[in-house]
């Protein structure tokens, strides 16, 4: 190793020390505590699987995450597909409309949805005053409100990922299909969609992972009635202090996410998209 390279290696030391001591270690400690607290063994995991309340929380998390992901990815694809075909000026406007919610604090967005969806909120007021409905609708503090808020949170991410990926598709392939006489529908279903699969997989992966671990939006828009894993963990560590349960659930969540990432990484297109110049 040359002197120059030793210097370079030394530059990575502060990051390494901090990452190991202040990120990796605390997370490993979570994994360890799940087997040690309150007493050593697999007791926490056994009780997780026997507990009806936790079963309900896990089910809610899976249902909400699956619905959020399906809706987000389909809608984001519609938007991204339109954006990459827009002329420059319109595309900049469209991306601006995506970037504003992307950068706004998640709390501000959850608060906006509360303001709109509450029983005496903006939407119910407008609908009752216009005579469309006679009774205010229950739009928030239930699964519907949580999913609206989560789709709204995830869509900008998914759109930006998809725009970056769809933008890389070679347009000459599309032109070739057209010039060979394919109908627009055929071009879309047989050419565009298969070529979009890597982008769609990445958007799906990120949306699933974010949804599974999401705390803020479900907590605010669900108000305790739509209890997901992250909120359940937060209750365990801040009020009931059941560290064993909290760390065991955290471990399961981490393992689930690890498995998802590992499956995704087996696909060469996915590896290319992650390792590609845009990441």
């Amino acid at each position: 190793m040359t002197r120059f390279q030793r210097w370079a290696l030394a530059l990575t030391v502060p990051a390494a020390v901090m990452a190991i001591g202040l990120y990796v270690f605390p997370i490993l400690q979570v994994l360890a505590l799940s087997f040690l607290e309150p007493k050593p063994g697999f007791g926490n995991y056994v009780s997780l699987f026997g507990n009806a309340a936790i079963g309900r929380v896990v089910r809610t998390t899976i249902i909400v995450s699956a619905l959020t992901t399906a809706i987000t990815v389909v809608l984001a694809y519609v938007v991204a597909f339109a954006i990459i075909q827009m002329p420059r000026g319109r595309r900049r406007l469209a991306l601006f409309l995506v970037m504003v919610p992307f950068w706004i604090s998640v709390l501000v967005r959850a608060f906006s949805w509360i303001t709109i969806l509450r029983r005496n909120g903006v939407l119910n007021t407008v609908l009752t005053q216009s005579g469309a409905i006679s009774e205010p609708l229950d739009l928030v503090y239930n699964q519907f409100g949580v999913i609206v808020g989560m789709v709204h949170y995830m869509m900008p991410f998914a759109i930006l990922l998809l725009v970056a990926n769809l933008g890389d598709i070679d347009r000459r392939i599309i032109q070739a299909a057209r010039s060979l006489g394919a109908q627009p529908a055929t071009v879309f279903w047989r050419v565009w969609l298969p070529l979009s699969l890597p982008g769609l997989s990445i958007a799906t992966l990120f949306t699933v992972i974010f949804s599974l671990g999401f705390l803020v939006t479900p907590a605010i828009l669900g108000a305790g009635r739509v209890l997901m894993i992250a909120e359940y963990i937060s209750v365990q560590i801040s009020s009931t202090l059941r560290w064993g349960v909290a760390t065991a659930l955290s471990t399961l969540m981490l393992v689930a996410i690890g498995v998802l990432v590992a499956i995704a990484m087996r696909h060469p297109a996915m590896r290319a998209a992650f390792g590609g110049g845009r990441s």
Partner: protein
Amino acid sequence: MSPARRLLQIGAPKLLAWLLLAFLFVPILVVIPVSLTDRDYLSLPQDGISLSHYAALLDWRAGWLSSMATSLGIALAASFLATAVAAAYAIGAFVYVGRWPSLLRVVLLSPLIVPPIIYAVGMVKLWSRFGLLDSWIGVTIVHVMLAIPLAVLAIGASLSNLDPRMVQAARSLGARPPTIFLRVILPNLGSGIGAGAILAFITSWDEITVTLFITGRRIVTLPRRIWTSIADSVDPALAAIASALLLATLLALLVRLLFVERGGSPSR
């Protein structure tokens, strides 16, 4: 194909796309009229508009100003530290290509994937052992760790545009390593370091999930105060602070759109 059908096939998806863009953008704007309400509960203005909720924000005793100062201080410190650590790492990994730096890169970027609630569980345990719960240093360190990934990505992107022959030229001309790092590589990373610092600042300024569990009465960041007041009451002052944050974001993005991005690529 009939023109009507063609219009439907091409026009309908486009129309749907613009409707979805409206779904993303318009709901956020609702906080602006609500912040101007003349009532003291969350509602649209009834008999005229009022700025009283903005005035309430500026009252020091309401706590919004001190929370803003807290968040600003922590975000500036976290952004500075995260950018410095990320820049040192990125430059080191650029020069020393190998297994170790790329493994470290995965670890440094993992906060982007690992749910913050899991990190929160770990840090509550760690900080309670060191007595750093609800302390400036405890919050700042957590924010640094969460801000490093975006800083690494931003600085790494600008390093990948750096011509390695420049470093080779400096070395063959006999420059010492510190000279190469500080006077050859660093000056070429201005835009990446700037972008990294801004992203790190925003990460810290917005951080809520971990902060919620490692702070208490003493350190009340702005997101934490917003969180508590959403949970406690529905006060129009909340709409005023949300509008202020929204306007700042809109302004920053407009400036970027009009001045920075001209001729740039359409994707981020």
